[in-house]
């Protein structure tokens, strides 16, 4: 797709027209939740947040993989990083996430741990083959978007006979988390903007339950302002139906059935498991763990890491924010005890976290 065409998804005129349509068709307040850090940032960075009609209420859900990484999972990273002969390989934005004692991988690095920021999981394979005397552990954090690539990396390690490459799999699956959120009677969400990236892999049908079971509209959405406004318009229209079917706004990136090959690779290496979500707790069937035949790559097993529940950070309301029950500014710690300089909770740590976005972008 040429850059000029992609520019159209940022076209201010088109946005103005879509905003006008949205205003015309609104029928009272609509509280929408996006479930993707890229949506959160796009809504703020583009200034969309400040031009949406006031009846359109934006809630930021658990869509940033860094934000939903549980304290006890971060503790496991720190445990690993402290071990002799271990090189931790990670995507960059994980290194500042605090565990339950407030420590993060950056602190571990200062204490002498070897933590390498990489851009692709395949870089971790190079790291492993260049450091045959160390064990390279890749921190597998992310949703369905990331998991297939990491599964492919494991298959590649197997092919290359790389014995010193391991993965700590804390992958999470989006649909089960949404199911828990909607079924919570305290959350008040009228519709969902669903993450386009995740659906490039899983397609749109894993979300059918949102309309069928709960009668709420949901739209798989791209990441530019025009995408988001069009999806909101689709949502407003669908909200007038009883059991609206899932819709796909991001047709240039997502096909109905996603990428079956990627899903197949993901499930070749991993299987569903229960997983801890920060601020939410245990969600059945919402994680991915190694299948038995791949357990020699499983850092959790090999290092016998203990991943138990632990208390959330004191005063932190990230859980409420992730569930859409509270906007970041309403948290008593926001901007005071909790800032990007000294984040208390995960939503302030990640650049794609909703608290960080409010802090960074919101004028008043």
């Amino acid at each position, binding site marked *: 797709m040429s850059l000029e065409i992609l520019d159209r998804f940022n076209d201010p005129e088109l946005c103005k027209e879509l905003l006008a349509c949205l205003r015309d068709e609104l029928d009272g307040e609509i509280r929408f939740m996006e479930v993707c850090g890229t949506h959160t940032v796009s809504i703020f960075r583009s200034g969309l947040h400040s031009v949406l009609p006031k009846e359109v209420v934006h809630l930021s859900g658990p869509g940033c993989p860094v934000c939903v990484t549980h304290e006890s999972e971060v503790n496991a990273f720190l445990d690993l990083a402290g071990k002799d002969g271990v090189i931790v390989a990670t995507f*960059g934005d994980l290194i500042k996430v605090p565990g339950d004692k407030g420590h993060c991988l950056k602190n571990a690095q200062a204490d002498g741990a070897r933590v390498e920021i990489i*851009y692709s999981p395949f870089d971790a394979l190079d790291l492993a083959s260049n450091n045959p005397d160390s064990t390279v552990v890749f921190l597998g954090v992310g949703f369905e978007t990331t998991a297939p690539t990491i599964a492919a990396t494991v298959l590649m390690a197997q092919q290359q006979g790389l014995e010193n490459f391991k993965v700590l799999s804390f992958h999470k699956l989006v649909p089960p988390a949404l199911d828990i959120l909607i079924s919570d009677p305290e959350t008040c969400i009228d519709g969902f903007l669903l993450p386009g990236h995740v659906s490039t892999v899983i397609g749109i049908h894993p979300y059918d339950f949102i309309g069928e079971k709960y009668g709420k509209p949901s739209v798989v959405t791209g990441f530019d302002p025009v995408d988001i406004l069009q999806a909101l318009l689709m949502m407003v229209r669908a909200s007038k139906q009883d059991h609206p079917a899932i819709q796909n706004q991001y047709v240039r990136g997502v096909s109905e059935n996603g990428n079956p090959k990627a899903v197949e690779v993901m499930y070749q290496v991993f299987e569903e498991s229960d997983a801890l979500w920060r601020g939410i707790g245990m969600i059945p069937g919402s994680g991915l763990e190694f299948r038995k035949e791949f357990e020699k790559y499983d850092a959790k097993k090999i290092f016998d890491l203990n991943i138990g529940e632990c208390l959330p950070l004191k005063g932190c309301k990230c859980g409420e924010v992730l569930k859409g029950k509270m906007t970041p500014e309403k948290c008593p710690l926001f901007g005071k005890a909790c800032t990007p300089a000294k984040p208390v909770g995960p939503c302030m740590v990640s650049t794609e976290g909703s608290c960080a976005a409010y802090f960074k972008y919101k004028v008043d």
Partner: protein
Amino acid sequence: MSSDKVLLDYGSGGRASQRLISELFLKHFANDELDRLNDAATLSLKGKISMSTDSFTVDPIFFPGGDIGSLAVHGTVNDVAMLGAIPRYMTCAYIIEEGLPMEDLEKIVKSMGEACRHAGVNIVTGDTKVVPKGMVDKIFINTTGVGEIIADPAPSGDRAAVGDAVLVSGTMGDHGLTILGTREGLSLESNVKSDSAALNHLLVKLVQEIPDIHVLRDPTRGGLATTLNEITVSSNVCCELEESTIPVLPEVAGGCSFLGLDPLYLANEGKFLCILPQEHAEKALEIMRADDLGKDACQVGTITDANPGKVVLVTPLGGRRLLNMLEGEQLPRIC
């Protein structure tokens, strides 16, 4: 030189050091003051003096558009010039990791010499240390520069005033993205290169023609966003930027979008921002655009009293958002 690698001996002060000085540094930096090889340099300067120091540790040491040597000159020359000064002299101190290929060192020294000649400054004193392998990463260079201030009053970060125009001399983020891309071996699809350049000649023209420039700053580390935040805090004013007017090369915008970075936070090494009364903006832009280093200059915003201490970005959609100071380095994101 007798070895093709830098040896510990070269920093010893003995004959090996002497040879390094005469065969390499003097060859490329030659000027009357340095050639005397005294313990200190004699400087002839008039009036108020601008002085600045910076240490350069860039990795990689060679990158598209420059190298650590030219950067060490441009960085310091530009800082000195931002007070409305003519840079005159520089010091340079090298800390070199044992084993650095001689060929690399010579390339760096040569490029430093060329950058000095182009900027019109002389390196008048220097120092070289060689440290055991692993103690530094290849080579670190410190430079200190001094210059004569010709602007009166001198531009300063606390002089931005309500009603002023905010100008930038060109595209934002080129250097930062180049370094990051080269460092990580990312094959960015384009030919992005560092903008590293000495801005002093253009700046001198500017301050000579326009006497009342309130602020001149080079948005290096932390980029335009960080520099403007520093200025709005020092001057207790608000800076309102029109996002659509900020020049960013399409290839830089593309690379940033791919990596989850914001070009407004990326370093520039050959750009400056200029804040001055709105009535002088057109003339300043004319002067800037007449110079190759300012050909893409434009007005990107104005100084207001709306949100003192803050930088507000007006987006193409007409939305308003903060352009906040970054906490630490920008980190590539997960997805």
